[in-house]
């Protein structure tokens, strides 16, 4: 067919085909490589620029941070210096305190000894004082008891003396006895030192007085009964009822 068109001969074999297309392929390859190189070069340039910028920025930041760190470090060093100084001062103060504490310990020890001695002496004083107080209390109680005893006696005597007033018979002796006894009871009550003898004597006299009044009112009641003086008898019986 090519022969009919009278033109160039058409390669028939692979070798011919390869030889025929090789310049094209080479040119294409060169172009492709050139284009690829150009693209890569461009891309690289841009990337390089970006990285450079980023590195610069990073570098700037680092520099700034390092500056700050340096400053902080310097401050810290200053602080450490101060702390060290303070520590030294504290060490010195501690030494002084130790010395002081030693002295105080000695003083305390002395005080403890003194205190122990004081406590022992105080126990002794308390013991003596307690004995005195107990003794005084006993005395006071004894006096109180005796005054109370006399007061009760006075009350009883006054009570029974009222019955004497109601008696119709001769009561002059009983009345006189009451007056004297009452006076003696009052006098004894006011005494600072009431003795056992005082109390025994008064008790006996009060007892005798009571017995005389009882006998007198019983005798009068019996007389009233025998003479059927019922009003008088009932009054006398009322004396008894008054105490029940």
């Amino acid at each position, binding site marked *: 067919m090519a022969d009919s068109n009278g033109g160039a001969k058409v390669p028939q074999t692979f070798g011919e085909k390869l030889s025929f297309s090789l310049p094209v392929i080479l040119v294409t390859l060169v172009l492709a490589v050139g284009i690829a190189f150009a693209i890569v070069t461009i891309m690289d340039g841009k990337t390089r620029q970006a990285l450079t910028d980023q590195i610069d920025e990073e570098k700037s930041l680092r520099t700034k941070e390092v500056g700050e760190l340096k400053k902080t470090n310097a401050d810290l060093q200053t602080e450490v210096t101060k702390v060290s100084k303070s520590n030294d001062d504290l060490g010195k103060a501690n030494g002084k305190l130790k010395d002081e504490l030693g002295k105080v310990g000695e003083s305390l020890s002395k005080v403890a000894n003194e205190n122990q001695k004081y406590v022992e002496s105080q126990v002794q004083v308390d013991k003596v004082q307690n004995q005195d107080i107990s003794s005084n209390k006993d005395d006071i109680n004894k006096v109180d008891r*005796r005054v109370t*005893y006399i007061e009760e006696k006075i009350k*009883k005597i006054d*009570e*029974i003396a009222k*019955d004497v007033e109601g008696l119709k018979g001769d009561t002059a002796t009983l009345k006189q006895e009451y007056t004297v006894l009452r006076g003696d009871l009052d006098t004894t009550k006011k005494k600072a030192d009431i003795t*056992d003898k005082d*109390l*025994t004597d008064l*008790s*006996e006299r*009060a*007892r005798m007085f*009571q*017995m005389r*009044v*009882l006998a007198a*009112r*019983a*005798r009068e*009641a*019996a*007389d*009233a*009964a*025998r003479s*059927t003086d*019922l*009003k008088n*008898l*009932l*009054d*006398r*019986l*009322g*004396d*008894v*009822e*008054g*105490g*029940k």
Partner: protein
Amino acid sequence: MNLKNLYSVAMLAVLVALAGCNTEREEGQGERAVLKAGQQVSAAMVGWVAVPNTQPSLIADKDKAVSYAVVRTNNVIPSSMSSWVAINPTLFSKMSDIKVETQDSPDAERWVLKSEGKSVPKDKHGWVAVPFTQPQIESSGKAKGLEMATLYANNVVPKEMNGWVAVDRDTLAKLSEKYMMTGKGADLPKARAENK
């Protein structure tokens, strides 16, 4: 016997018969009469009071050596108990330590002899008529229950004194004397050594 004497004897018999039909006093019992059914009230007894014939009975307590009588409403006090003293039973118990049993007052039925010549009813046969007198109760304001009354012969016991105890004066004196040694002021201290 002439007619005049016969007449006198007859009149005497009539008087005797009439006298037997009237109420009359008992001999030896003072102002007191036991009524018989059909009798006519005599002029001297108008205003008297008749009650069933009952008297207080005497009781002797040998342990306490005390004799006493418990009076009941409308008892007529016999002359043997004249001048005795009746005591409120509570007070008597305190004085003697004898507990007296109380009994309810019986029906206080009395019949007043109001008009002369009125016949004594059958149901009043055997009753005792007396001038109406009652014992006078004496009391003391010092304590409750302190009451006594002197009894006289033929007193009629009032209802308020039902259950009271009557004793003679010696017994009363003995009980009183003993009782007076108790109560207020009787708590005698022991001789010596009391204050220790």
